Structure formats: C-alpha cells, structure tokens
C-alpha cells in the first residue's frame, strides 16, 4: 500500500470500528437494560412480566415469611402508596430486615416479583443508591451498594 492509501484505510477502519461499537452498544442497551421501578410504578402497570428490572422499597413490617425449605423467603416491598409481593431464594443480605430499605433485582411473574438478588441497606451510613429518595431518615451522606 502507498502511505497515502494506508492512512485512508486506517482512518476508514477507525471510523468503522467506532460505528460498530456504537451500533453494538445501542443494540445491547435496547435489549439488556434493566429499569428501576417502585411498587407504585408496578401498580400503575409500567412494568411488564418477564422484563429484567430492579424494584426498590421498604420491607413492610411483619411481611417476611420463611418457606419450609429454609432458603426461600416471601416479603412485601412498599413505597407507602403501593405494595408488591416478592419471593427470593438465597441468603438474604446481612442487614435485610423489616422496616428497612431494599432493592431487589429480578423479574415480575403474574404480580409477584421473583428476585435473583437482594441489595439491602448496609448499615447506618451506607445504603443502595436508589433508596436515597425513598427514605427520609437517610442523609445523602455515604452510600454503599449491596
């Protein structure tokens, strides 16, 4: 290749790579992004069954039920307006308890949220970012996810 053509080919390659990256990223984002909802959003029908999403709220008082297998729990997340039942199989995080905030990652199935992961308010100072707006007690001081 002549040096001049060579530069042209290189620039074309770089531009093509840039386009490829953007197109691939857009394609991936359209299919794979998960949105954050509150129980009120779900009551309003904003979320669809089977779509990957995060659900945030406070764990309702008296709502945690342990199923007989010992590792599945059912509980209710609330934002004060609406309530969503959640089922989770796994070891709940250390500070997951009634009356404090939690974010569940998973999918809706016929009105119940099936969680793959639960992120809980970690201690007095740290909490999942989305809960910042939900709890009045929380000062936007320091946060820690999961």
């Amino acid at each position: 290749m002549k040096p001049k053509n060579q530069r042209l080919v290189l620039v074309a390659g770089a531009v093509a790579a840039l386009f490829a990256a953007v197109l691939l990223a857009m394609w991936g984002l359209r299919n794979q992004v998960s949105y954050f909802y509150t129980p009120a959003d779900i009551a309003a029908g904003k979320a669809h069954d089977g779509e990957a999403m995060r659900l945030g709220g406070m764990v309702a008082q008296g709502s945690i039920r342990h199923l007989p297998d010992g590792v599945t729990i059912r509980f209710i997340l609330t934002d004060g307006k609406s309530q969503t039942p959640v089922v989770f199989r796994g070891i709940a995080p250390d500070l997951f308890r009634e009356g404090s905030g939690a974010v569940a990652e998973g999918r809706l199935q016929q009105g119940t949220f099936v969680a793959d992961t639960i992120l809980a308010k970690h201690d007095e100072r740290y909490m999942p970012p989305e809960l910042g707006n939900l709890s009045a007690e929380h000062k936007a001081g320091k946060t820690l996810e999961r």
Partner: protein
Amino acid sequence: MIAEAGLAALWLASGLAALQFLLMIAALRRGADVAGAMRSIAVVQGALTLVAFAMLLIVFARSDMSVALVFENSSAVKPFIYKIAGAWGNHEGSMLMWVTILAVAGGFLAVLGRRTSEHTLLAALGAQAVLALGFYAFLLFASNPFARLFPAPPDGQGLNPLLQDPGLAFHPPTLYLGYVGLSVAFSLAVGALLTGEVDSRLARAMRPWVLGAWILLTLGITAGSYWAYYELGWGGYWFWDPVENASLMPWLAATALLHSINVLAARGALKAWTMMLAVIAFSMSMVGTFLVRSGILTSVHAFAIDPERGTFLLALLGIYVAAAFALFALRGASLKEGAPFELVSRETGLVINNLILSVVLGIVFVGTLYPLFVEAVSGEKLSVGAPYFNAVAGPLALVLAVLVGVGPLIAWRRERRPVFKQLTIPALLGVTGLAITIILWPQMHILPRLGIMIAAYLAGASILPLTGRNPLRAPLATWGMVVAHFGIAVALFGMASNAAFTSERLAIAKPGDVLSVGPWLVALADVTPGAGKNWTAVEAELRATRGDDIVTLHPETRYFSDPPTETSESAIRTFWNGQLYTVIGKEDQSGAWQLRLWWKPFVTLIWAGGALIALGGALALVGRLWRIAWRRRSPETEWRRERYA
C-alpha cells in the same frame, strides 16, 4: 505539626509544578537552556509529595484523631496494618496517593528519560507538571487530607469492614500505579506532539512505561477480581460493576497501546494512532478515577457524595482530555506516515487487534456511562449489567482470542508464506475440544462451548512463535508475548469451565446433616461463636469428603462494631481441579443454618491466567530494559535486535 508539615510539602510541590510548567514554555518558545533545572525540579517535586504521603501514613499509624480524615476512617482498636491501609482507603488519602505516584513518576521520567530528544522530554515534563498541578489544586482546595478537627475526638468512626482485608489493602496502590504510569505515556505523547518528534525513538522511550503500567493494571484487575470472589461471598469473579469497569477501561486502552507501540518502535508506522491511544489510555485512567472518586457511582468503592468534588474532577478531566485532543487535532494530521506495509502483514494484524480492543472499550464505556447519562438527562433510573456486557463484548473477545493465535505468526511489512499451515495442530486441538464438549455435555451453552474450543486452540497456537527455532535463543520479549498469550487461553478455559460446570447447592442444615454438591459430600459438624480484635463471629465447621479427600472448612459471619456491619467470610478450599466454596447464612427458628455451597471446576485458572498475562508483560519489560542496557554498550548492532522485536 505532622499534618501541617504534610500540607506545607503539598503547597511547595504545587509551586514547583507551576514553575516546571513555566520553564517548559520558556524552553519551547525561546529555546532557553533549562534542562538541568527542570530535571531537578521534577525530582524535588516527587520527593515533596512522598514527604506529604509519609506524613499522612504517620498520622494514621499514630491514630491522631485530631486529623479529620483519621477520625472518619480509622479507630484506635483496629489492627495496625489496616490503620496504615486506612490512609488510602478513603477519598482524600487515595487522591494524595494518586498525586504522589504522578509526581514521583514525573521525577523518574526526568532522571531516566534520556532516550527521546531533549526537547520532547522537556515538553513531556511540562505536560506532567500541568497534570500534577490540577490534582494538587484538587487536593488543596477540595479534598484536603490534612484538615484538623477541634477539639480532637477520643476515637474514630472506623473503616468499612469490607475493606479490612489484606488483599484490598494493597489493591488500590497497585491499580493506581498502573493508572498513573499511563500518565507518563500521555505526557510523552503530548510532548512529542508539541515538538513534532513522533518516531520510533519516542515509542521505545514510552514502551517500558506502558508495559510497567499495563503489568500493574493486569495484576490489580486480577487481584480485585479474586477479592470480589472470596470477600463478597456470591461465587462470582466479575460483576461488571462500574468500579470494575473503571479499571478495565484503562486496561483495554493500554493493551491496544502496548500493541500499536510495537509497530511504531519497529516500523515507524501508526504514528497518529499510537499518540491517540496514549492520550485515550490515560484519559480512561482519569475517567476511572472520576467515576470512583466523584461519588457519582454508588458501589463498594465509591464513598463520598460531594457535588463540589465531582464537578472539580469532571472539570479537570474535561480540560486535560479536551486540550490533549485539540493538540492532537492540530498536530496529528501533519505527522508523516511511516513505513508502508501490505495488507497481509504483522502491522495489519496489530491494527485489527487495536480496532477490536477499541470497539470493546467503546462498548464498556457506553455501558458504564449510559445509566449516568440517562439519569442526568431524564431522571430515569436504570442499570446496565452483566447480560449487556456478556452479550455484546463476549463474542468480540472470543474473535480476538482466535486472532491472537494468528497475529504473531505473520511477518512485518508483508507476508508471502502460507501462515495458516502452521495452525493445523492448534486447529485440531480446538476441534477436539469442541467434539469432546458435544459428546460429553450436549446441553452446554454456546459461549462456554466456544470458550473451551478457542482456549484449546489458543493454548497450542500461542506457543508457535517459539517453535521452528531454538527457544532458548528467542528474545525475552518473544517469550513474554508467548506467556501472555498462553495466559489468555488459560484464563479463557477457567471462565468457560466455571460457566459450564459449576454446581451450586443452597439449603438449610442442622449440625450432623450432610449436603451434596458436585462430587462432594459436605457435613455440617458444628456452629460455634468466635471473636477477633474488632469483631465477633459465628463460625461453622464443615467436613467435606470426595473419595479419599477429606477437608474441613470454616465459613463465618462476622459482626463488626464500628461502624456496625456484618460481613460474610466464605471458606474456600483449592484443589488441582477446582475450588470448593462455602458460605454460611442465617439460623432459622428450628436451629438449622442456611448453607450455600459451590463446586467450581478449574475456576482458579481464571486468576492463574491473569497472573500469566502479567508475567508475560514482566518478561517483556525485563527483556526490553536488558536490551537498553546492552545497547548502551554496543550501539552498532542495534538494527539486528530491533528486527526481531
């Protein structure tokens, strides 16, 4: 007094950085002879930041609670090593460490940088001073690590227990050395663009810095992945967390730079492209620092939400990146292209390597920043997680892994030999791997299946550059390349095996119960309380048996008092063919405990591969430095060795 001495050292260092920048302008504009002065200033500046950092270590070691930073991040009862590590386990301290490494790297550049022209070196030192100046300003005006509290409180608030771990204590320094090592490549690129001397001499001067930074980034990412694996207790090794991506992005750019710089060093081609990558690599380091340190993300590592700091960092990032790209736009086009090469050549192979790495970098960059962008624009909250990155970047990474086996076989400039013939045996290895997975595990997912196939192929293909000649006479840099490429195959096999063959068991057990996971039978023998210096714990005793193997594991849940937190300490046992990974959960009303058990065949190869990749880099670095020392003695044979580089 100690804190004040540290602060004074920082002010002095920033004054010297300003002076260094002014001298650079004088040198470039008027041709003033300031080389000696600039070198000394750069060295003294580095020494002063070291003094400031030492002062910070001293106030942390002494638990001087009158320093606000110590009060917020330490406590008198903490083990000594975490008191020291606490110095950089927080925002201000880690930024001070960042600046210290930046200034010390500048000092080393001043002393060691004799391979470029004097002019380019001075311009690079000036650029390095400007970088340091911005971060000094950030420390002094927005993140003073030496601020005092009056009156001094009796005890501090403690360090996040998740961070009280030996692995994590030394993880940030490793990553920072890597991040900031790239600043020298950035400064050299800016310097060379200013003087117009972009040539193979510059590439050879830049290469050891890039290699060194890249080795440390590789080690830091590998160690960080292992830390997340055993400390978080979720059994995963990579979560595509933004903080992880913050370290992956500079690594991807540095990997591309490492390859293109060889083209510039050996053939004098890809000038503009290499300069661009040097600018991008350090920009990604700054993006990473911004993401982690501005508090814009909320993750294990990102603590302070402080809009002032975030804006300051963003402004610094914007100014430096914009200035570097403006300079590139002004000067890049006037660079003469170097030696021509044909379509089938090592150069083309490396260009393809660079393009794929850049696309992967773009994908990770978009995926990491998109949620922030959407939230800033529309207020809508969303997250981009593993499904996106795996689906979009995964196949590209596999394609790249296939090409890694081909590239090193192709000659520089033009290739007329039938290269593919050499790949017969590796291709057979790959096909055999594929056939075995199809016969034994017909249900396996497509990505792990391809991963095993490509790992088998690449394990063979990566060592081909050493065949056909006496491997002991091959240059150390070639050995380094072979080891690093072989490491990719090893890590890929570990990832594929982990994805395909992991068995998981989640159940409750009372003492005496037995659970099975993979080939193991795990009995819960007992659950007992325990205690450490600043925590209490519940500790399970598990007896695992597999044939004649009998091992005992002790997973724990620890309760820390300051700040009040629980952490789960997994117990992991390593065997030649995998790891048994155990976690204890909570007790239910009947006295049964939740247990989570994994058997992960060959998972350790993931980190062994990472270590091999870093080792390959280290071999190449030693080889290059050795050659520099050698060349000083016998310059006349330089061309012969460079031909084999």
